């Protein structure tokens, strides 16, 4: 792997005033980064949330420093991309390191700290998650730990902003010291060890040393484990863990779907149909304009009608509710437990449990899910998981739209579409696994402590996510809406529908106007479902329409991210594959359905 692919901006390495933010995975580095730089990066309670480094500005002693959020690693032996990035940064003469120790996993983080200290760069450490350690009855003697490691240490609870001020002060103190204070030249970190040097078995000696330090500095007060820790353990046991996970997933789904439906029925539909749309109808009827223009603005597919009907009433409630629920799942530490519990199912499908986290991310939006697959250890695994997300995982906007289409008609139909999606999921996983060369590494995952998400951090993340959705999805959605209005109200749709009639009506059995779905679906996923809502489809047509739009082209943003993360060829193959599969499967299901209808 060439270096320039890992660190895209080489200038960052020559930057003089660099401070590195380092630590094991999932100790909350990103929370410190957000607090110190005001750049909000997403943090969660599982390893590998930060898949690349982040850079922000931190002002200390009236000087601007670049604070770099280095992806978390367990060691510095260059065995993964993240570790290579960390080593490159360590070797680029940073001014100081802000090292985050995990109070709840002290031995592991001290071992990494010892490796970092070998680089002889000034270090200030935060003893984060000190509240969790306390909960677990661990009494850490911070003064003793400072002496053992030879660095200043500040206990913190970063998500609650505790200890951040003191940490900042300590960092300023250390930076005020002359940079020539330490023997920088004598850097034996990259050395494999020579005779007489304990580095020969560096890994072991650091682990042993860490164990020693922990035995000196930590007193276990043998309290009973808290209710949360006991629940965390139960969730990890095969029994009742699997049952609990299924209950948690069903409850999450119930909240999103049930509350979304209620919100739509009680608030949004009346607001749009009786408030906003009539308002625009009156407004436009009072202005003299050609009929075509009037139709484009407020006709059956008019911009000012469908933008509210589709975006405000159809997509938004589900997006908001999903983020509320999913942020909770992410921050609590439930997801990695599910990765462990369902690893057996996933490995039957040719992947491993850890991928489940990215697939679940895909139920929100495919873009972060595909970026998240960077944590995969092989390219093959990345491609399989990406294909699954593109073919078989509907994003939340589409799920909301599908739900509105199907559930009002029959829950059985919803179940049928869900089962078809699950079947495609399995087939894609197995088929791409067969087609691609290489291997998929088995699961190795750290299981974090279960946490109750801290309210402030949780809501901040929620708002950031919703804002992100609005800024990133609003544009394409509006493009799709304007496009729909122009197509439908200028008569262009009739021409296209006529042209696509053999496919849409002959093969798929849908009304010719459903060709709009195939056009809009290229832009956004939910836009392939929305036009179906007003076509008065029968049960079979709804099923076929839903299956086609589920599998059909992910969306333009996904195409972009596929081309960026892999290459143009991969992006094109996946999109062509989705179109082919969607139309083939849709047609087959239509004809099977027709035969069944004739028989019964």
């Amino acid at each position, binding site marked *: 792997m060439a270096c320039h692919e890992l660190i895209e901006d080489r200038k960052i390495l020559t930057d003089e005033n660099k401070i590195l933010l380092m630590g094991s995975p999932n100790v909350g580095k990103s929370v410190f980064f957000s607090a110190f730089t005001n750049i909000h990066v997403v943090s969660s309670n599982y390893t590998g949330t930060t898949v690349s480094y982040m850079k922000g500005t931190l002002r200390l002693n009236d000087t601007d420093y670049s604070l770099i959020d280095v992806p978390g690693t367990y060691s510095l*032996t260059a065995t993964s991309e993240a570790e290579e990035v960390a080593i490159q940064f360590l070797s680029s003469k940073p001014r100081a390191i802000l090292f985050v120790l995990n109070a709840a996993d002290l031995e592991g983080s001290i071992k990494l700290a010892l490796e970092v200290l070998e680089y002889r760069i000034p270090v200030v450490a935060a003893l984060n998650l000190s509240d969790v350690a306390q909960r677990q009855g661990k009494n850490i003697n911070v003064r003793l730990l400072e002496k053992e490691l030879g660095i200043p240490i500040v206990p913190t609870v970063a998500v609650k902003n505790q200890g951040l001020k003191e940490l900042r002060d300590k960092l300023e103190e250390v930076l005020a010291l002359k940079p020539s204070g330490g023997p920088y030249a004598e850097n034996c970190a990259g050395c494999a060890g020579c005779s007489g040097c304990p580095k020969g078995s560096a890994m072991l000696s650091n682990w042993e040393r860490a164990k020693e330090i922990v035995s000196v500095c930590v007193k276990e007060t043998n309290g009973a484990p808290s209710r949360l820790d006991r629940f965390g353990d139960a969730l990890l046991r095969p029994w009742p863990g699997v049952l609990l996970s299924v209950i948690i997933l069903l409850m999450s789904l119930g909240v999103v779907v049930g509350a979304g439906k209620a919100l739509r029925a009680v608030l949004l539909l009346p607001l749009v149909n009786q408030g906003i749309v009539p308002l625009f109808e009156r407004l436009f009827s009072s202005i003299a304009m050609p009929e075509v223009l009037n139709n484009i603005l407020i006709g059956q597919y008019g911009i000012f009608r469908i933008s509210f009907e589709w975006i405000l009433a159809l997509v938004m409630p589900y997006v908001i509710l999903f983020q509320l629920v999913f942020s909770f799942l992410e921050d609590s530490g439930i997801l990695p437990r599910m990765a462990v519990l369902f690893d*057996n199912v996933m490995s039957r499908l040719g992947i491993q*449990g850890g991928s489940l986290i990215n697939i679940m991310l895909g139920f929100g939006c495919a873009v972060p899910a595909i970026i998240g697959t960077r944590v995969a250890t092989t390219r093959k695994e990345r491609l399989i998981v990406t294909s699954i997300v593109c073919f078989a995982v509907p994003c939340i906007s589409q799920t909301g739209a599908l739900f509105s289409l199907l559930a009002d008609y029959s829950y059985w139909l919803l179940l049928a579409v869900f089962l078809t999606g699950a079947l495609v999921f399995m087939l894609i996983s197995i088929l791409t696994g067969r087609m691609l060369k290489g291997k998929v590494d088995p699961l190795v995952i750290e299981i974090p402590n279960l946490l109750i998400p801290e309210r402030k951090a949780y809501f901040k993340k929620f708002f950031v996510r919703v804002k992100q959705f609005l800024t990133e999805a609003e544009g394409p959605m509006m493009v799709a809406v304007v496009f729909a209005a122009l197509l439908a109200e200028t008569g262009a749709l009739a021409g296209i529908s006529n042209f696509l009639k053999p496919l849409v009506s002959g093969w798929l059995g849908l009304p010719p106007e459903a060709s709009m779905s195939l056009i809009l679906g290229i832009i956004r996923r939910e836009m392939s479902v929305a036009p179906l809502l007003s076509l008065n489809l029968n049960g079979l047509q709804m099923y076929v329409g839903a299956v086609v739009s589920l599998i059909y082209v992910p969306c333009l943003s996904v195409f972009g991210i596929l081309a960026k993360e892999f290459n143009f060829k991969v992006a094109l193959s996946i999109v062509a594959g989705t179109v082919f599969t969607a139309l083939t499967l849709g047609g087959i299901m239509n004809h099977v359905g027709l035969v069944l209808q004739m028989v019964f």
Partner: protein
Amino acid sequence: MKYNLYEAERGKEYIVTDTPDIKLLSSIGIFKGARIKKEHTYRFGGPVSVSLSTRKIAIGKDIAEKIRVKGE
């Protein structure tokens, strides 16, 4: 008493005697001489979970079968 980690009895403590050559294992805390406690085996081809002194990890079956441990 030597076992592989997959078959090792749950709830008991072991010392690792041999591991496959996977760097992530040693950096996460599974190396020759490490003390671990076997927690659970997940059936139907699932992983095993183990406790190290301060962290819990899960290891896929294929790797767990290649990790040798001995009882204390």
